[in-house]
């Protein structure tokens, strides 16, 4: 070879390069969200695995199907809770579970209207309650249902119903989630953001000014932490707090309208965990500051109420402070055409369960109350911003109403406007409540999952809240602390699911068989039609043994004849060609 085979070298180099590149090609790749994995006082709860690599199965399951080596895909409404409950109770293993959530969780324009809305919400609430309090040893993922998934489910059901477990051409679908092993979140931080609006301290006033605190927790907890946006619980409360801060900062900016009370605004974290963050925040205060708090208003879930709001207290309603505050609220509510009811729940100090935020204040002997649309205290880890709590479950009007109620009552208390029919925050005034402000913040919060352990100290969202609060208040400070040891969280909350359509092993083997036979046939065909050595060797044999050499002549003649017959069978073409090729 004179010229070096440069083309081959190039091909080899290309091969080497490509060997280092691994491409992922799938029929579909979609973002999925994992069920939360956490330990509560050492007990493991939630989904304990993250990576998934199994064949897909769908309901209704064929008879005798073994789910321990397949991943079940089920839309939310098709998934019977009893089925899951049974699986969990009997500790049966499943390869994995993928739950498809309807795209719009609270579709308002569904023709069945309230029924459709309630059904989805109810199913989600029940599912969440079940999964949050159980240990699930296999990965559980949530995804949003769309056309691709519908087609996938239809395909899977078709394959299952055709009776062939894995047909020759399609072995089915494989769900692959390659996620790293979930690790513990090392020190989950809770960040409380506070801001002050200092009141008017006149010359010669020696006493410390009293403080009124307005508090709301901004973090959430839900079955899928990457989807826990908690619009109503408690995005609505946080947004209301920001609007109240904005209104009062306008009032306080002018010394002539500055009230004789300090206002303290607190956006706390750690709400779902027995208001742990609020506790730590209060603990961080100087005793004197704490004692100067006249009372605190906590806002919790005020985003979807129409006529009735509840004021929850831990001191008995006959208490003069509580009575006065309640009167303030009642006056304003009557004017607004809504009603405020009062609910009393005694605190049991020995019980670690803290159902309302005001209870943490009460433990420090600060008068406090919680305003909420919920009539009864939520259970542990309930109403903390779960799967159904999306943007549609909170509306701007309810938040506006709450802001009006709280700010008007506060104004009456601060400025001593009892009994007078004055609208401090009237419409079309410079102090009007701004629904656009409320809407844009509510929209933002509904796009941001805010589970506290996954929000770092320097998370941009916390920085945004701090910045917003500093626009309205002074002395803004972020107090970070570690969530107490009862809870341990694990990461890997989001992943990419790849759906592959795979061929079964039988198909590959069959193909190999066909290919092998094709190549063999090709080989034989080419040999028979092109090789001429048979002819030449036979003719050679002929020439050698044509001479009358005695002994085995007859045998050789026979052999010669047999070979000639074989030759004629391989066709006249062959002869022609052999003659032509000479």
């Amino acid at each position: 070879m004179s010229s070096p085979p440069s083309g081959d070298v190039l091909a080899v180099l290309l091969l080497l390069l490509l060997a280092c590149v691994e491409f992922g090609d799938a029929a579909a790749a979609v973002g999925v969200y994992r069920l939360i994995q956490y330990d509560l006082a050492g007990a493991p709860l939630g989904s304990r695995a993250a990576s998934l690599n199994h064949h897909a199965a769908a309901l209704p399951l064929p008879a005798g199907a073994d789910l321990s080596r397949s991943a079940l895909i089920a839309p939310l409404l098709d998934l019977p809770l009893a089925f899951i409950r049974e699986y969990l109770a009997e500790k049966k293993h499943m390869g994995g579970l993928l739950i498809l959530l309807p795209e719009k969780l609270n579709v308002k324009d569904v023709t069945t209207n309230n029924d459709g809305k309630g059904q989805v919400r109810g199913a989600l609430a029940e599912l969440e309650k079940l999964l949050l309090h159980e240990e699930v040893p296999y990965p559980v993922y949530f995804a949003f249902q769309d056309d691709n998934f519908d087609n996938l489910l239809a395909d899977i059901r078709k394959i299952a119903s055709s009776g062939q477990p894995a047909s020759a051409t399609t072995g089915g679908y494989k769900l692959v989630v390659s996620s790293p092993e979930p690790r513990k979140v090392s020190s989950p931080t809770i960040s409380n953001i506070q801001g002050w609006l200092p009141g008017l301290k006149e010359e010669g006033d020696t006493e410390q000014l009293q403080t009124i605190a307005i508090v709301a927790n901004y973090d959430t907890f839900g079955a899928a932490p990457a989807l826990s946006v908690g619009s109503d619980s408690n995005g609505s409360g946080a947004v209301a707090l920001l609007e109240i801060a904005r209104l009062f900062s306008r009032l306080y900016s002018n010394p002539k309208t500055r009230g004789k009370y300090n206002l303290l605004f607190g956006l706390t974290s750690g709400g779902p965990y027995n208001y742990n963050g609020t506790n730590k925040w209060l603990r961080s205060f100087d005793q004197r500051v704490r004692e100067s708090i006249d009372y605190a208003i906590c806002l919790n879930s005020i985003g979807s109420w129409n006529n009735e709001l509840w004021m929850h207290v831990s001191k008995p309603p006959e208490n003069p402070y509580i009575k006065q505050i309640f009167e303030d609220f009642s006056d304003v509510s009557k004017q607004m055409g809504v009603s405020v009811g009062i609910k009393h729940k005694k605190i049991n100090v020995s019980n670690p369960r803290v159902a309302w935020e005001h209870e943490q204040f009460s433990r420090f002997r600060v008068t406090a109350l919680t305003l909420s649309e919920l009539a009864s205290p939520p259970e542990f880890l309930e109403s903390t911003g779960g799967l159904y709590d999306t943007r549609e479950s909170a509306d701007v009007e309810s938040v506006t109403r709450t802001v009006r109620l709280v700010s008007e009552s506060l104004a009456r208390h601060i400025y001593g406007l009892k009994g007078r029919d004055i609208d401090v925050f009237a419409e079309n005034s410079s102090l009007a409540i701004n629904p656009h402000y409320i809407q844009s913040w509510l929209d933002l919060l509904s796009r941001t999952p805010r589970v506290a352990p996954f929000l770092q100290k320097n998370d941009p969202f916390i920085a945004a809240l701090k910045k917003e609060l500093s626009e309205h208040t002074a002395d803004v400070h972020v107090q970070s602390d570690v969530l107490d040891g009862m809870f341990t969280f694990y990461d890997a909350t989001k992943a990419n699911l790849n759906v592959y359509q795979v061929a079964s092993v039988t198909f590959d083997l069959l193909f190999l068989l066909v290919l092998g036979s094709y190549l063999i046939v090709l080989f034989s065909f080419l040999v028979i039609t092109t090789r001429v050595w048979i002819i030449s060797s036979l003719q050679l044999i002929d020439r050698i043994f044509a001479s009358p050499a005695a002994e085995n002549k007859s045998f050789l003649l026979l052999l010669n004849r047999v070979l000639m017959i074989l030759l004629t069978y391989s066709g006249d073409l062959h002869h022609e060609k052999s003659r032509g090729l000479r």
Partner: protein
Amino acid sequence: MTVFHFLNCAALTFGPHVVYYSATPLSEYDTIGTCVKAAVVYLGTALVKLVCLATFLKVPENDKFDPYQELMKIFIGFIDVAGLYFALTQLTHRNISQNHKFQAVGLGWAFADSVLHRLAPLWIGARGLEFTWEYIFQGLEANANLVMTLSLAALGSLMWLRKNKPRTLVPIIYACALLLATMPSITSYLRRSLEWQTPRVVGFELFSSLAMAFISWQLFSACQRTM
């Protein structure tokens, strides 16, 4: 199982070339040198074609069939024929008969074509978990391509290496060569304009390659017989 699939498809794509080499007298006469030279010429031709395509062709805005672009592509396709001419006539080969020469050149050409166009997608794609028929169709196309290249090389050797041809057959030879040279354009026309699906296109390619092979074989034998 996916490496298995890759090996299967690779065998389908490149196996026939190897089988052809070993089954026919090519291996006996050690014509590997010719094959390699033809492969190198193919690479050069591919490079020239790419440069011409990049220079003369516009990037299509939509997927419609543009006759002028296609005509340009056909002309550039003739560079292929020029390359084959170069490989058949200009290169010095060892003393091998004409018959084996065109086979060796055709084989080397088709093998280089398969490697360049089909190896990389095969390596990247067929090893994934996802199963598609694509690579099997690609392998069948490689087979069809081999047959067509051999036919074209045969006709080429008839046109350029053989001096005395029967008068009546000459136009047929040239017509068949033209048809083979424009085959890639024909398939792309079928795929884009008539919107034929891949199985149909591959079937058409296989059928047409066998038909052309038969025709060129008859032509070749006819020319042989007159010698």
